[in-house]
């Protein structure tokens, strides 16, 4: 049986104003029309734009909606509307049950007061009663793992400690709907894992709306996804991997960066052989051979140098390195050119966009003579989405 719908958003639109003075003046007008119950203003006024346009979705208990998009896509605006902080200009939002928002941790903290006092302040802001906080204060301190410093003024806390304390209080909420913005990114790894563990625990009984730029995290916990772009959705549905692909396609940065160049050689051309181009980016299917052609112009260099070629993923994490050329590899300098190709059979990187960086050394030295990042981007296609770097082909056989 499907669980009940907790969040329902119908035809939601919101406009913002680009100019502060005008915005304030519209604010005054809106105040008047709010108070007098006036119902006009369905269209854009001068200097306004749609920060959100016609958003629709439903979320049931136990479901997790991922909200992705580039900066300024309207994610935070949508969260604010869902949280009831600002009113939509069009459409309707229906929220059923207690709403918990992890948008700002440690709201209501006063820096001069101690951690313990601030547990009460923060708890009160989050809607706990005194009794509830009294009952939970020890648990909160334990969860935050900062018992030693709990009677110290919060202004002497590190930012990570503040987040710990804030999350420890917020984790005591038992919301029906949980809204999470990217607040958890501040804590250290151990604490972040702890946060996600507690989110996992409440997930079955909660509808979660999760905003993040961390795609592996999104693909791990979300079962629905909305990709926003300039207030409209590019994608809205259950196919998380498709939305992530679209998201990555948008941010492919094709500008390569030469980090080091001592004037001995220059990269003229680099391209994927046997690949298709989609939106200016070379794509190959998973399992296909990865074949890359390089063409260097040599200004002054006697011998073939050593090429070290590294694959980076979308988050700039190096995921793989190609084996280097040997001094006796069959490539040579001809008419001031070094042209060669490398082939890797049956690429098993999981789907996603990758970039190459190339560092060139003289043989038997550690000093680079040329280095370029993001020399080329390419995309691996596969129907399944994985947040691990590699999708390794394997066969299952009975023994």
């Amino acid at each position, binding site marked *: 049986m499907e669980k009940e719908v907790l969040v329902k958003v119908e035809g939601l639109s919101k406009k913002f104003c680009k100019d502060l003075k005008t915005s304030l003046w519209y604010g005054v007008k809106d*105040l008047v029309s709010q108070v007098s119950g006036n119902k006009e203003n369905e269209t854009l006024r001068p200097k306004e734009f749609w920060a959100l346009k016609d958003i629709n979705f439903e979320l049931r208990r136990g479901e997790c909606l991922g909200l992705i998009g580039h900066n300024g896509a309207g994610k935070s605006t949508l969260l604010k509307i869902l949280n009831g902080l600002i009113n939509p200009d069009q459409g309707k939002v229906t929220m*059923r049950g207690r709403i918990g928002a992890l948008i700002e941790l440690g709201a209501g903290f006063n820096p001069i007061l101690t951690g313990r006092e601030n547990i009460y302040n923060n708890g009160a802001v989050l809607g706990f009663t005194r009794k509830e906080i009294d009952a939970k204060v020890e648990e909160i301190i334990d969860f935050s793992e900062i018992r030693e410093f709990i009677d110290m003024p919060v202004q002497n806390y590190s930012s990570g400690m503040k987040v710990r304390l804030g999350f420890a209080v917020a984790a005591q909420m038992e919301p029906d709907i949980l809204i999470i913005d990217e607040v958890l990114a501040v804590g250290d790894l151990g604490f972040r894992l702890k946060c996600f563990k507690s989110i996992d625990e409440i997930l079955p009984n909660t509808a979660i709306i999760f905003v993040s730029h961390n795609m592996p995290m999104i693909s791990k916990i979300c079962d629905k996804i909305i990709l926003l772009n300039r207030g409209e959705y590019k994608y809205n549905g259950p196919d998380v991997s498709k939305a992530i692909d679209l998201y990555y396609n948008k941010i492919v940065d094709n500008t390569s960066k030469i980090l080091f160049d001592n004037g001995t050689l220059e990269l003229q051309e680099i391209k994927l052989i046997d690949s298709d181009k989609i939106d200016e980016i070379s794509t190959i299917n998973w399992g296909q051979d990865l074949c890359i052609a390089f063409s260097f112009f040599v200004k002054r260099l006697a011998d073939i140098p050593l090429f070290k070629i590294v694959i980076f993923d979308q988050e700039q994490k190096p995921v793989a390195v190609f084996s280097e050329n040997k001094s006796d590899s069959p490539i040579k300098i001809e008419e001031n050119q070094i042209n060669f190709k490398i082939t890797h059979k049956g690429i098993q990187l999981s789907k996603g966009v990758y970039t190459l960086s190339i560092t060139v050394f003289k043989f038997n030295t550690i000093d680079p003579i040329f280095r370029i990042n993001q020399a080329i981007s390419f995309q691996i296609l596969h129907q399944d989405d994985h947040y691990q770097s590699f999708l390794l082909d394997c066969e299952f056989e009975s023994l």
Partner: protein
Amino acid sequence: MKNNKDLQVKIYQKQNSTRLTTLFGDTIKDFFGSHFLALQLAKRDISAQYRQSYLGILWLFITPLATAGVWIFLNASGTIALTDTGIPYPVYAFSGTLIWSIIIEAINSPTAATNAARGIISKINFPKEALILSGIYKLCFNSMVKIILLLLFVFAFGVGFHWSLLLFPLTLLVAIIVGTAIGLLITPIGLLYSDVSRLLTMSLSLIMYATPVVYVIPKTGILKTIMEINPLTALVSTIRATLTGQEYEFVFYFIVLGSISFVLFFVGLVIYRVSIPVIVERLSA
């Protein structure tokens, strides 16, 4: 698992289709329901304020004390000749400036409380009425300290005990409500434009001279008319009368003003409630 029917339903949309009575009911409910939060916020602000200061509570009356001091000096040195007030002038001046400071503080309180909470208003949904209530709690705390000082003054200068003193805290509460009601009505627009609070500060410092704070109402002339119309006159003089046992000149005006303000206060709260989303939208990027 919770029963479906227990779930509270919240609907957000542009059309403010909520009936005025429901809106009013919700406001009242949140206002009184947020007692703990308001108290917690007030406690937080008061303790934080004094923990970082050596003079602490003294700051509550240094300004009114200084203003009164100036006038007492001007009067005593014969620089200006003031009409006899009927009670020792220092008591008159000091009670005037202290009561005035309470009224000013009350008028500024809603805007100040909301401004201070800007950071959380734009991030967390909580009953905003708590901010106003916590402002009132802070005012009550500050006023209590001032009352004690005033009583010391009254007895030190031999004005003595009057039964009307028992009404004194009550009249101060009325002053707080009148002030907060005025402040509350200004707050929505004051949050959008900083001009409003500057204008307010300036006008109030002028209005002080049209209120019997440091001198009595003249017997004749234009200032007499202005001062008698000025609603703050009714406040200041009635409150002072309960303190010193003088005759009540404006008691009717005072009662009318108090009742109207009481109603206006709740009207202001409703307006405040519907204004906050608009303000959050305009102020938080």
